[in-house]
């Protein structure tokens, strides 16, 4: 993996937002995606898990899994949706682990944001985030994918592994709940 990344850095590769060339090898494609998509995926994971270190771990695991399973992937043109789905799944795993840890250790839930991060967000955005955090897991994922990544219903469905109809109803319920919550706070 590291070898592939370094090789991609050394090449005078095509511009970051262009797709990988058709004849590119799996390593080249993964390396190119790592260079161009890592930041946005870490940010997505950060919004879902709340701390950067864990978010980077989740994304790293997603890339490692992609690299490992490359030969078994049937559609190499759909790698980015696969990575997104992998990151969302990784974030779910993090929440499960945290939940298990809390049950075992009896610790209270740790704050989602660090104090510094919360201060930087400002009061209004903190309020919005608090309301989003209170949503059920599926609704929370759907609104982040919809309003952070601006994904379509079909893309959200693919990422979350649910139907488009479920995405529509999930986002609708999430917005309704957020409206009630935020209006109630004002």
């Amino acid at each position, binding site marked *: 993996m590291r*070898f592939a990344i370094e090789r991609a*850095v050394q090449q*005078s590769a095509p511009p970051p937002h262009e797709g990988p060339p058709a004849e590119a090898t799996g390593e080249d494609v993964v390396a190119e995606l790592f260079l161009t998509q*890592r930041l946005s995926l870490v940010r997505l994971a950060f*919004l879902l898990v709340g701390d950067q270190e864990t978010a*980077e771990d989740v994304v790293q695991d997603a890339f490692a899994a992609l690299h490992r399973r490359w030969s078994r992937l049937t559609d190499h043109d759909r790698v980015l949706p696969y990575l997104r789905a992998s990151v969302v799944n990784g974030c779910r795993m993090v929440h499960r682990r945290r939940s298990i840890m809390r049950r075992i250790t009896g610790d209270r839930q740790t704050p989602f944001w660090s104090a510094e991060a919360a201060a930087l*967000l400002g009061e209004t955005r903190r309020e919005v985030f608090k309301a989003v955090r209170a949503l059920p897991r599926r609704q929370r994922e759907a*609104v982040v994918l919809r309003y952070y990544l601006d994904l379509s219903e079909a893309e959200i469905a693919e990422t979350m592994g649910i139907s488009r109809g479920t995405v529509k109803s999930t986002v609708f319920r999430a917005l309704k709940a957020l409206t009630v919550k935020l209006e109630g706070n004002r």
Partner: protein
Amino acid sequence: MRPSLEDQLRDAFTAAAEQVGPETLRPAEEAVRAKPGFLTRRFALAVPLAAALVVVVIGTVTAMVIGATTPAGPAAYSLTGPPFLLVADGDGVTVREARTGKVASRVGLPPVPEGSFREPGGYLLAGAGDGETFYIAQSVTSRGTQVSSTRFYRARVDERGRPAELVRDVIPQVIGTTASSLSVTGDGTRLAYSLDGKVCGQGTTVRFCPGAQLTVVDLPTGTTRTWTTNAAAQIESLSWAADRRLLGLVVRSEARVLDTTAPGATLAISRVVAPGEEATTSAISPDGRSMLIGHTQLSDGRQPHRYIIDEYSVTDGRKIRTLLSRGSDGDVMARWDLIRYDGTGRHLLVAGNFDPLSRLDDGRVTSLIHHGSPDPKLLGSPPEIRAAW
């Protein structure tokens, strides 16, 4: 009017996500995590010994496999891009290794004529983006007449960073006001420079009027074209797109784009890229589609000042992303004052008045040259560094 819930969500998500800056990501080669997050506290004590043994065995085997397939040698991050930089600071003009900032050679420019100049040394630098071909302008102001003379040099360096060529007066010397910015196209055929103010009158009636002037010189033919502005400000941060047509600039704290083929002789024909943003510096990308703009976000009393480099779309002025963001709580306002793309657009040089000259590659920031200590007699920022590649 309160924004819609959708807009509030977009705003909150974007603001939160931008807390993860590219410069804060761990280096790409650090593939091994120090500790899995769930193996902590009492849970770790409950892990059966057998499972631990399995982990050790698997880890050993994996390490052996990885060790067999990973290329040997140091694990240093491979910095590509232009091999050399040209830097002007308190030590004069030097060629530096672009990976480390170490001095490779010194450019032997003629002695500075008698007069005053802006630090460092009155030099302005521009590079073709390949790390080999550079242009240098030096403005010196006569203490007696207050008239400035600006000379232009071209320097080329060889593969070891030693000067291979130094041509004086590549364009005729400019007499009048001080030059404030310099940029050359990637193919080295068009040179843009700006001058403070305008010279009015002739002979004994010569005087300085408000406004500034931008000149583009077609180097093979020697033809020039000039634009003026009546703004009482300098034209700064000149940067060319690779098409040799679009020129980025900052004037009156506005980042603008000028189509140098469009009719008109004033900068009124240029277009503001991000209205409302007070730019301290900018750089247009080689493909001409986006512009990096350095600006400062003032504190609201609860948060520190932030100085930020944002990327904007040249086409529609939309903010694309935040590239760098720093907090500042000092007495002197921090700002970005240098952003330079290389010829490919994949590597950046950045510097702030409190940030060292650094390069940015794939989100990784490498500090190259730190500012010298500020003169204790003078309040303000440390000495400025100018650089180009």
